């Protein structure tokens, strides 16, 4: 870890500590830094804005309540993504028994040049098995490298890679089926 990374990690740790002690400005700063990215992650994992908002809300509330588990040895953003991922999984677990459709997506939430293509991608993402969706969202949508994606997923890098390539193959198949 470089000196700059260590310094950045210390800053993040301090910011989280301030937020946990009730410092509203620190909370708002954390939200400004990470809220958009977490919302994007949650939206692509759960597939709708309402539950994505729930996920982001619970992510921050849990981070402030239980932030003591963050030691600064990982990037704060990755740590928050891990919480958001777990919250998203909980949302999906609770949704399934109700029969709600996990594949619905909100094209209005993006600003695409090609709305139809975005809708097709969102629909295909919604049809992926959870593990595939998580891998491809973290890597291809969120732009994480294999190491960070594996860290968030809590798996080996090789497993993350394998899931990604399988997910892309399945996506291509789903997109082909939509034609």
């Amino acid at each position, binding site marked *: 870890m470089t000196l700059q990374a260590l310094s950045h990690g210390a800053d993040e740790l301090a910011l989280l500590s301030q937020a946990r002690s009730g410092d509203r400005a620190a909370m708002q700063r954390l939200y400004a830094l990470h809220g958009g990215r977490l919302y994007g992650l949650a939206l692509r994992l759960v*597939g709708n804005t*309402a539950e994505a908002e729930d996920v982001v809300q619970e992510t921050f*509330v849990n981070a*402030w309540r239980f932030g003591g588990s963050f030691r600064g040895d990982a990037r704060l953003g990755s740590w928050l993504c891990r919480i958001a991922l777990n919250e998203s999984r909980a949302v999906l677990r609770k949704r399934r028994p109700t029969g709600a459709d996990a594949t*619905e*997506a909100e094209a209005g939430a993006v*600003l695409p040049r090609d709305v139809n293509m975005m809708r097709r*991608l969102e629909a295909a993402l919604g049809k992926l098995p959870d593990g595939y969706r998580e891998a491809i969202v973290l890597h291809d*949508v969120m732009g994480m490298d294999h190491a960070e994606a594996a860290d968030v997923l809590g798996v080996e890098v090789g497993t993350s890679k394998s899931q990604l390539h399988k997910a892309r*193959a399945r996506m291509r198949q789903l997109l082909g089926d939509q034609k």
Partner: protein
Amino acid sequence: MNDGTKLDSAHLEAETLSALIEGELPDAAARSAQDHLDDCAACRAEVDGLRAMKSQLARLADVTPPRALWTRIEAAHAASAAPVRPTPVWLRWLWPATALVAAAALALVLWPRGEERAPGTPGLARSGTPGALSPLAASGQRAAHAARARDAVSRAESAYRSAIEGLRAAVEQDTRTLAPKAKAAIARGLSEIDAAIERCRGALRTAPDDARAQEALLAAYQQKADLLNELLQEAM
């Protein structure tokens, strides 16, 4: 399969091509795959398709959270962090009034901004349900959201007035229990908050769907709830 490129069939598998475009195939397998690509237009097209899909997926990250989400998170955090303390008997009936203000304020923050969502979904907020929207549907939904927000404002105001009446009745009923300092704080706090609320209401009379005015009104309600909690704890 003998080298990881799955050349048993006529074409390379998409999974293999995905690893190829990431540069993750072993050297020998990558060379073999490249040889195949040189002679196979279908696999080259698949590589192009994978690259295009990767690029398009990256654009899905371009989303902006709704402006009210931060307010929601703050409210949820405040609700989760509220201390639980024993309440004196004489104050117990006041808690529902205070809670009513807080609940009304929360209701406004958390009031659905989208269509009704599926039951059984988690979280404090209930702000809409999935669905790709046509422009017409989106316009209709925005109108519905605005109506719901106005309704939430109305409910919050009603709850606020009820809570204030309850507080005043408590002060009149048992002034011995309430310290002068608390009474002064009540008068000062109520006056300031009422003025802020009146300003918000004035703005909303001009523009009933003004989200900023609605949020400011909500903030004033939340401030009121905080003040009540503070006074109640001070009296304890």
